[in-house]
């Protein structure tokens, strides 16, 4: 489905502009005038740069200008700040603080051992507990995490991948305890295993069983938890690993197509599950490039869903996404400047029409955010929403010669990548051949070289340095916390019924060995029996094995 847009020749309508520009002084700082991703940017764009295409309207196919006719006039984006640290209890307090401050949805960050399916008392968890998120070992911790928070009304996003099914079952078990029917449970699970193989590397099982588990969760939720967004197909991590904007766009959408293919193969009807797939993108610092990327994403997804997959439900055509401002753009030097960077990036996400947004705190380069930094990050979104006026009209940059031209080019680059991925035989063969990983490693290295040659500037890092660097107060996780968490875990192990534990784990193992079975109900049973995350994951590792990547440098 290669796309090439008809463009009229680049015309300078005012013939004297060209010679005026020639004669005008040029900057001599040696800084690149291409986008951060290396796309060409001319000094001027005019009506001649618009392609010949029927005018697009928000809320109408192919949704380039937005999936809703009224945009933010109907409803503002969800201000969803990702957070979690240390213990379930401390995180619970932070959630209540954020909800009271006006945050409209919860987002859970888990610690490394939890992300990697390990219990807090595993030897590999030493030194890692609670640092980059909250430690969750069993249902008991999950209950503490959401104590006093009504899961029937608050929507929660959980950022977890390989063990996602387990954590989702824990969440459902908490809702069950609160008396909330599954049909009312609302939220998102990241659950995007393909990008783990490509970029974030939090994989556990090999690709095949990993995909099976994802499809199991999609199938289960389509029937039992219809308001749940089953996968947040992510580009953020791909971008943070060093990809260009076009690569982020292409690899993410390609992953999306792969999930759709896998579910169709399972026998699910397209319109039964596609409406619950969502996306997660990065908002980096090159302002216009990001906006073009978001618009191109909507257009590409809509066309594919309708024309290739034959989806008939409009909701299947509409790409919904969450955005996070780029962690990788934050600096440790003169960190207060990160507030400004985040604001610019957030603005790009809003002008790109994001459905929900997380803004980084200024001290996140070094550690988890303090209360103050977290508050400023949230206030930044509120300032944009209520003070700047950008939410008053839908897709305000639509029609801009530059933006429309850039959107078209973004789309073309993505399509070129789709072809290359297809030539490998699809996403998984491409991953195993190391294709995406190589592209990412190459552009990461290129970027670093540009920085060192000062062809790109990062204020405070390679230019405009400052001697007086303020000492930032950093949130520290005391090591004593590890012991506390391990104690809590031991208590759970002591007080539960070991017969149910062995029985339910055996059932998980059995279901895992039977490709026709859906693992979700069995994992749910194990969760209810107070099996730990490590035990449930361990039972699946017994069947699926572990994955070792082939490193592409």
């Amino acid at each position: 489905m290669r796309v090439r847009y008809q463009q009229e020749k680049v015309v300078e309508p005012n013939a004297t502009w060209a010679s005026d520009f020639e004669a005008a002084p040029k900057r001599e700082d040696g800084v690149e005038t291409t986008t951060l991703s290396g796309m060409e940017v001319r000094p001027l764009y005019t009506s001649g740069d618009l392609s010949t295409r029927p005018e697009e309207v928000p809320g109408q196919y192919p949704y380039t200008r937005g999936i809703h006719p009224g945009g933010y006039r109907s409803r503002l984006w969800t201000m969803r700040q990702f957070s979690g640290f240390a213990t379930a209890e401390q995180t619970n307090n932070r959630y209540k603080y954020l909800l009271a401050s006006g945050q409209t949805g919860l987002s859970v960050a888990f610690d490394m051992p939890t992300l990697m399916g390990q219990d807090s008392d595993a030897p590999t968890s030493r030194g890692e507990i609670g640092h980059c998120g909250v430690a969750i070992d069993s249902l008991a911790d999950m209950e503490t995490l959401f104590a006093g928070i009504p899961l029937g009304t608050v929507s929660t996003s959980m950022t977890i991948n390989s063990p996602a099914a387990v954590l989702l079952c824990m969440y459902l078990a908490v809702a069950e305890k609160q008396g909330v029917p599954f049909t009312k449970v609302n939220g998102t699970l990241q659950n995007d295993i393909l990008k783990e193989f490509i970029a974030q590397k939090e994989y556990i099982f090999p690709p095949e069983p990993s995909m099976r588990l994802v499809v199991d969760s999609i199938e289960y939720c389509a029937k039992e938890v219809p308001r749940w967004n089953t996968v947040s197909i992510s580009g953020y991590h791909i971008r943070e690993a060093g990809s260009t904007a076009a690569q982020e766009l292409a690899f993410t959408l390609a992953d999306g197509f792969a999930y759709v293919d896998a579910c169709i193969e399972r026998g699910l009807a397209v319109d039964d599950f596609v409406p619950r797939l969502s996306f997660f993108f990065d908002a980096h610092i090159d302002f216009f490039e990001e906006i073009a990327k978001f618009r191109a994403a909507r257009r590409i997804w809509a066309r594919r869903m309708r024309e290739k997959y034959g989806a008939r439900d409009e909701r299947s055509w509409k790409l919904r996404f969450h955005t996070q401002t780029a962690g990788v753009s934050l600096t440790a030097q003169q960190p207060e400047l990160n507030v400004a960077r985040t604001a610019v990036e957030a603005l790009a996400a809003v002008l790109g029409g994001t459905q929900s947004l997380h803004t980084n705190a200024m001290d996140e380069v070094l550690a988890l955010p303090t209360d103050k930094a977290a508050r400023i990050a949230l206030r930044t979104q509120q300032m944009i929403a209520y003070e700047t006026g950008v939410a008053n009209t839908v897709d305000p940059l639509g029609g801009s010669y530059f933006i429309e031209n850039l959107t078209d080019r973004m789309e073309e680059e993505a399509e070129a990548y789709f072809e290359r991925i297809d030539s490998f035989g699809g996403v998984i063969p491409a991953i195993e051949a190391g294709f995406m990983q190589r592209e990412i490693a190459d552009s990461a290295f290129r970027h670093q070289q540009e920085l060192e040659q000062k062809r790109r500037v990062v204020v405070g890092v390679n230019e405009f340095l400052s001697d007086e660097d303020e000492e930032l107060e950093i949130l520290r996780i005391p090591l004593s916390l590890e012991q506390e968490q391990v104690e809590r875990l031991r208590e759970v192990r002591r007080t539960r019924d070991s017969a149910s534990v062995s029985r339910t784990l055996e059932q998980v193992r059995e279901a895992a060995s039977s490709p026709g079975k859906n693992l979700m109900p069995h994992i749910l049973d194990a969760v209810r029996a107070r099996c730990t995350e490590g035990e449930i994951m361990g039972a699946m590792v017994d069947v699926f094995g572990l994955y070792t990547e082939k490193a592409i440098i």
Partner: protein
Amino acid sequence: MVEQRDPSVRHLLESLGGTVRPARVVGLTGAPGTGKSTLADSLVALLRSRDQAVAVIAVDPNSPFTGGAILGDRIRMQRHALDPKVYIRSMGARGHMGGLSVATREAIRLMGAFGFDWVLLETVGVGQSELEVAAIADTTLVVLTPGQGDGVQMIKAGIMEIADVFVVNKADLPGAQKTVQEVRSMLSMAALLPPRSAGKAGDGAKTWRPPIVTAIALKGEGTREVMDAVEKHQQFQKSSGEAGQRAEARLKDEAADLVGEWARAEARRLLDTEPALSSRLLRDRVPYAAAEEILTRQGRELVPEAARSRDP
């Protein structure tokens, strides 16, 4: 020590010399992406299950410009990470002729001395490296995957001649059978040519026909069959006397390479330190006279000091 080309390694190796049973060397070669490291990992696991001690030498190319290298093959063998009877060593192929071969042979000898039963020698399979591996290994595996380009790939200079065993890896991919067929037909064409086992005085009946084994290294499938083929080949070499012939040929190669390495190093040193020699060279503008002078001048010692024989 061996990699540093420290000449005194000679004395170490001589003292260990004939008292040790040498390790059996299996070479793995093939184009990048065919799964050699994964196969090596599988073979290590199998050999370990038989309580054999295994060393793996994984060779990656050095950059010809900077001399640096990124050596990443260990990663595929994580599960053997803390096993004391598995030794994994990455080596950069320093890019010049002979350097890799001598250093690697010395390393292999040392490994035999330290009690390793097997050495797996894995190379990237670009340029000349296949031939270098085959010259060193007792048994050479050539690893292919389905759909790996066309038949032209396979006729790549020397591949057919050096393979003792063909492994078609990733055999679960489409086209696996076709690849097996292609190799088979190549082999039957090659069979019409004089046998590769040289020096056998025309004994055509006793030639080794390289078997074609399919495998899915990622799943550990086919590993046993590969090992069986290797052991059959080793048996054949022993009984046909080929083992002895190859060993002889190898030692000769190695001696010649060593002469080259020592002479080259000394020549370099002399050219830098004897003004008479270098000015002659500059006058001539061609190297012949200078080279002849270096090699033939009486009393000239071309063996590096630390390597000289200690016999009186």
